């Protein structure tokens, strides 16, 4: 059973995602945080296989979190789940070590599929985020 840390400042989103993944046997959301700082604390405390995080958050944003997590937990898999599709942000994310980037408002099945892929050690880049494909190529 893979353990997932879910980071999003919006509680309802967190609830909804947990609901998404409730029935899955391969992985489970075992921790959540509402910002980057809290997430780092949680990583300190418990072990996680996958970090699912948003980018825009108060106190510590997602980019900082990614950098810190990369430094401290180089083996931690990361899937960015966000509504920010600006190339600036994507570029910054891609400068970190992440395993996937996807639109937050994706269908349930797509999210589950992405998580499975990432956990298998593969990458997932969301087709619906238009600049992403090009930016991956030039990464």
């Amino acid at each position, binding site marked *: 059973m893979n353990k997932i840390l879910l980071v999003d400042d919006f509680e309802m*989103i967190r609830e*909804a995602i947990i609901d998404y993944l409730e029935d899955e046997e391969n992985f489970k959301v075992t921790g959540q945080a509402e910002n980057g700082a809290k997430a780092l604390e949680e990583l300190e405390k418990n072990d996680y296989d996958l970090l699912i995080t948003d980018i825009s958050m108060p106190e510590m944003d997602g980019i900082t979190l990614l950098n810190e997590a990369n430094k401290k937990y180089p083996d931690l898999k990361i899937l960015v789940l966000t*509504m920010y*599709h*600006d190339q600036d942000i994507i570029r910054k994310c891609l400068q970190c070590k992440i395993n996937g980037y996807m639109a937050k408002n994706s*269908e*349930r099945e797509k999210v589950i599929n992405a998580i499975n892929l990432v956990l298998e050690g593969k990458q997932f880049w969301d087709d619906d985020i238009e600049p992403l494909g090009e930016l991956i190529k030039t990464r």
Partner: protein
Amino acid sequence: MTTQTNHIYLQRLEAALEGAGMGLWDINIETGEHYANAIWWSMLGYSPEEELNNFELFFRIIHPEDNRKLKDELDSLKKDKKESFDLLIRLRHHDGKYRYIQDKGRVVEWKNGKAIRAIGTHTDVTEKYLLNKQNETNKHRFEAAIAGANLGVWDIDLVTGKNFANSRWWQMIGYDPDEVENLYNLFYERVHPFDAHKVNEAIDSLQKGEKEKFDIVIRVKHKNGNYIFIQDKAKGVEWRKNGKVKRLVGTHLDITETQQLTEQLRFNQVRLKSAIKGADLGVWEVNLKTGIHYANERWYEMLGFKPHEIENILDFFKSRVHPDDQSILDQETTRLIERTSNSFDLILRVLHKDGKYRYIQDRSQVVEWEGDKAIRAIGTHLDVTENYLLTERLKLNEARLEAALRGADLGVWELDLKTGRNYTNDFWWQMLGYDPNKKEYSFDYFLSLIHPKDRALPLKTLEKLKEGKQEKFDLILRVKHKSGKYLFIQDRGQVVEWEKGKPIRIIGTHLDMTRIYELNNKLKTNEVRLEAAIKGADLGVWDLNLKTGINITNDRWWEMLGYKAEEHTSDLDFFISLVHPDDIHLIFESLEKLESGEIKDIDIIIRLRHKLGHYITILDRGLAIEWSKGKKLKRIIGTMMDITEQVNRQKLLTSALKERNDILEAVDNGFVSLDHDQNVTYLNSTAQKILSIQESELTKRAFLDLFDTVLKAKLKDAIKELTAHEKPVSFEVQLKEKRTWLCFSLYLKVDGYGIFVQDITETKMFHEQMLENSIRSMENERDRISKELHDGVLQELTAAMMFAENLKHKIQPESLRSNFEKLSRLIRKVSNDTRRISHNLKAPDLEKNSFRGLLERLIDDVNLTTSIKFEITFSEYIDSEEFNEHLKINAFRIIQELILNVIKHSKCTRAKVLVALSSEMMNIEVIDDGIGIESISNAKAGIGLKNINERINQVDGSFLMKNGKNGGLVTTIKIPVR
């Protein structure tokens, strides 16, 4: 036969031989015995006695060539047994000359088949032979002559029809001798129909024996179709027994050319003769080489001499030429001989036999040269004495007339109604300022000079003259002088010649009456003016006698002061009593000055008391007109004008002006008053301050020259527009160096232009600030909404969608599940839209990014998210600081909207964005290769374009959409930078 009888026969023979001039010879070839009679011997100049036995002689005197001939002949006699011979041999006469001898002989005795004796006769045929020979030579010569003379020769037998013609004959008419069978027929057919009778008649007369030969000229058709002239000479050479001609021999000569030349010559001669006769010309001709000369009768007659009286016409003529004319004659003759001229034409005075000089027109030319030497000269003489004298006299008369007319200042003209020709003397033209020598001006030209209102006058008069209704006329016309000024011309004239009751010649004179007219007019005008002036100006007139104190005045004088003339005696005292106490000194002072001569006239303004008690202001002017013997001033005449009203008005005006200026000084508007020539007539201090003008500058430079080129041009345009439309004009302008904004308002005044100037820099800045603030706050607001949407609405929507997803996953039955699926999809779409709106609303961050950088980012974004390939190009200085923030934001937003438009509507594959910045303007151009404007007409009203329009209006820009030359759409936006 007896000896007697023999002797008689011999005698007879001798006589016969003698009569026939025959020498007789008898020779025995075998024995050498021979005999020759006396004639034989004498024929050769010998006497028979002395040479009797010398037969050898014969062989000595025979011509060597003939000796052989004779021997051959004799041999042949032997050989061929011929019995007779007949030879022509030459024998040398005793005088050494050969004689032609006809030697006839026969063999009289044969022996063994050999001739042994022959007898023969000699006849001297020298003469005959030579004649014959001559004949042959002649014949040859004739042939040659015929050939040389190009003669065609023909020969026809009229009885047998046999004919002959030499080749020239054929060539003459273009035929080859072999071509034609019957010469006569051919020839006859080709004779010109008009000339056929000539041929017939000629042959007839020959046949009838009336004539022996003929010589006619006929036209014969050449083979080429042209007629040639042929001289046909012929004579009969054989006749029939009845006397009619049997054979004709003739010659043809082609005289076409000669004939034509002759015709021409005849024609010329006739013409020349008639010309000479008609022109009364004396004609002379000199061959300078041979001295042979010729002159016709008239030539001699002209000088009063007879031909026999003059030996050498050239020398004679020269001797008669007037000494004063000798040099010119010599000079011209030399020129002729030296070939520097072809001919001369002189008028020379030549002494007539009667002792008087005649004027002879001598026209000469050299007509023949031999190398450089003139060898033939021809000339004509014409007596032009009468003409010359007449001309001279006429010239003299004209000059006299001209002088006379000049003295009278008269221009003379003359009009020939028959020919329309006109004549004018020099002064006629000079009067109008034209050069008479040019004379290029016609009667019509003169008409054109007449004042349009007077132009009909001479034409009408001319009509009346022509109709005989009038013989004389006297008009005053206004005629334009070359200078453009109209002259008053008195045009007088009369008919001087009639033909069949109709006038054919009119002579007239022009007299310049301008001065008189002007003086007259001026005088008249002055009188009238004076009256009018007095009346119109409401002048009171006074006439003061200082000696008596009596002051004569007109009604107006009294009226002015509220009195009636009869109410008061008018004298100086009364007048003085009315003068305002403060002004009395003015009167006395000016009277003193006038008397002392310090001033020439009185010109003062005084106040006089009206009958009603109030004072009126009077302009009093006077002139001293009489002085007593003691140099004392005696009489003054003057006028009085009531100027109370004017003075009051002036006061009012002055105060109004002062008030105006005070007001203008008080307000913070600058005001400049210009006259029509744009000179400053007034400039308030504010204007001086605003425009930074020193008053001293105004005298040095024109008002408009005080400003930079931009302002100067704007002011010029404004004045132009103001003058054209007579409506106030306003404009705003920024003075570059000071960065101040000025507003100019111009209006039209009676005396020029009024200009208000206002410093509107603050207002402008305020507006700019306002605009920037409003844009900034709008951007802030958008940014806030963007964040709100993104961080609030969008998150919530996402959550909502996720719940819908969960429901879709978990809920039963299937029908409900599909509803949740739809709900989920719908919310996802709304969230995506919201995300995009939020993104677009996000303010461009100009603090972190350059304008250029922002746009590049924008294009990058677009290229990453669409299949259209966008390119952007920038001009230099695109990030200039002149281009302030709110303009940058606006431009960015506009470009953003344009790009969205392209993405949404153009269906293009490529698009280009050009952004150019100059000091005045930002140009934005978006070009795509899509479907163009027709197809997007609906979109034009769309929100995107509305937004663009609003933004453009905010910054006073302009917006143009049109289809590109190669399809697609071109959108051009211009935004003023300042």
